[in-house]
């Protein structure tokens, strides 16, 4: 796939944003090529916030993708370790909005740590971690 000219990030909190931002930085994306969607107003319901906005974000991505190489990253914790449940919820969000499911060819990436994003951050910083322990604090 060609490089996207802009990446939209829908994340459940600032830490997820930072993870996506650093990842994209490694891929050579400048700050101006990355756009973060609004964050939820407080802590605790971030995943609900993301799921509520997911269908709109996908709709906007699909509209824009017909004109420019755009990508969408959705960063959301699985929290209790059931990845399939989270994937299913996102899929259902699209169905409820009368949208097609995410296709392989689409530049829509789901960043879903099995537990919390902190596990991935610690792992990439060289710490010995597992996906069962809660490292969020």
């Amino acid at each position, binding site marked *: 796939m060609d490089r996207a000219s802009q990446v939209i990030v829908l994340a459940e*909190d*600032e830490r997820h944003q*930072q993870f996506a*931002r650093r990842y994209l930085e490694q891929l050579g994306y*400048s*700050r*101006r090529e*990355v*756009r*973060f969607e*609004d*964050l*939820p*107003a*407080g*802590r*605790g*319901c*971030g995943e*609900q*916030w993301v799921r*509520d906005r997911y269908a709109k974000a996908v709709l906007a991505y699909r509209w824009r993708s017909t004109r420019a190489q755009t990508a969408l990253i959705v960063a959301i914790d699985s929290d209790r370790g059931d990845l399939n449940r989270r994937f299913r919820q996102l899929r259902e969000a699209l169905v409820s909005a009368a949208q097609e499911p995410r296709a392989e060819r689409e530049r829509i990436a789901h960043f879903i740590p099995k537990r919390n994003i902190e596990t991935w951050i610690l792992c990439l910083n060289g710490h010995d971690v597992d996906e069962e322990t809660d490292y969020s604090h």
Partner: protein
Amino acid sequence: MLTRLHIDNFRCFVNFEYRPGRKQLIVGRNGTGKSSFMDALLFLRSFVQSGADAAGPTFSFRNQPTQWLDQSRQVFELEALLDGESFFYRLDIEPWRGQSPPRVHSETVHIGERPIFEFKDGQVQLFDGNLEPRPSFPADPARSALPITPLGTDKLSVFKLWLSRLFCFRLNPFAMELRAERDDLAPKVDLANVAAWLSHLVQSSPRENFALHDSLQDVVDKFSSLQLESLGGSVRILTAEFERTPATVLKFGFNQLSEGQRCLICLYIILHFVLAKGGTVIIDEPENFIALREIQPWLTAVSDMVEEGRGQIIVISHHPELINQWAPSCGVQFVRDGMGPVRVEPFHGEPSSGLSPAELVARGWENG
């Protein structure tokens, strides 16, 4: 970094306590003391830095006591964590009383419980490394005595240097001057002296100047470079060059740039020359004049820098873009009941409302 600010008997601040984080957004309704907070810091900084007379015109409008109190003293306290030690500065000042001009009642600096500087009853007392008092000397109580203490490698100098790098900004592109007739070591609050300040910065921090240009080339379309061009003697003008074609450039005086471009360049100057070097920045409504598209990249750059442990930033803003990105994690609100004193509360976002943080504020629902 600034860890605590206490203000008593200054405008709407009565026993006001504020403990800022490394990155903070201050929100609040009109009249809740956000600008006065900045004025208090401006007053303190210029009083302690410049050694100006407290009765002088610079300060007469700034150190106004709280109208509904009848106290004979104003107290300002600053705490800062510097090189792993907690510095505590306290200024107890008698404001204007009728025809009596302001005078310093006492001024002290401590590290933890240890005094390193005391100014009381017109006498300055310094202490050596073993906390033994040195010979005292007299000073004028109409002014801060800190500026007259020698700058060296002692602890007091650490505090003074930090304070010299605590900058408050309220950008005003209409005031920004094209000419630099000298090098200015410090910026004015509105950055009217951007050319003179930048002249000093590019000489003292060439590496940061490269980083500035990298950033500006990324965010300002076709931007090539900033130049300080000599007009003869010590006078220079600030110009910006833009690529017209790969081989040709167009040169503009800084005053020929749009207000938004001027402010954007200034925001990146602050980022690279103050924050990146560990300074503390308080900035009022940085988004003014800036295109919506450019606000978030600057916020992200600031967040990256703070995350890397460089500098401290306190932003005052009403802008939805800032509120939606920063309020959930680092927002505080200034709150006032009627015309009472100001207090600081954490931003009360309620995610279950389904509303964005800015929409909560816009509806006046941020307090639940």
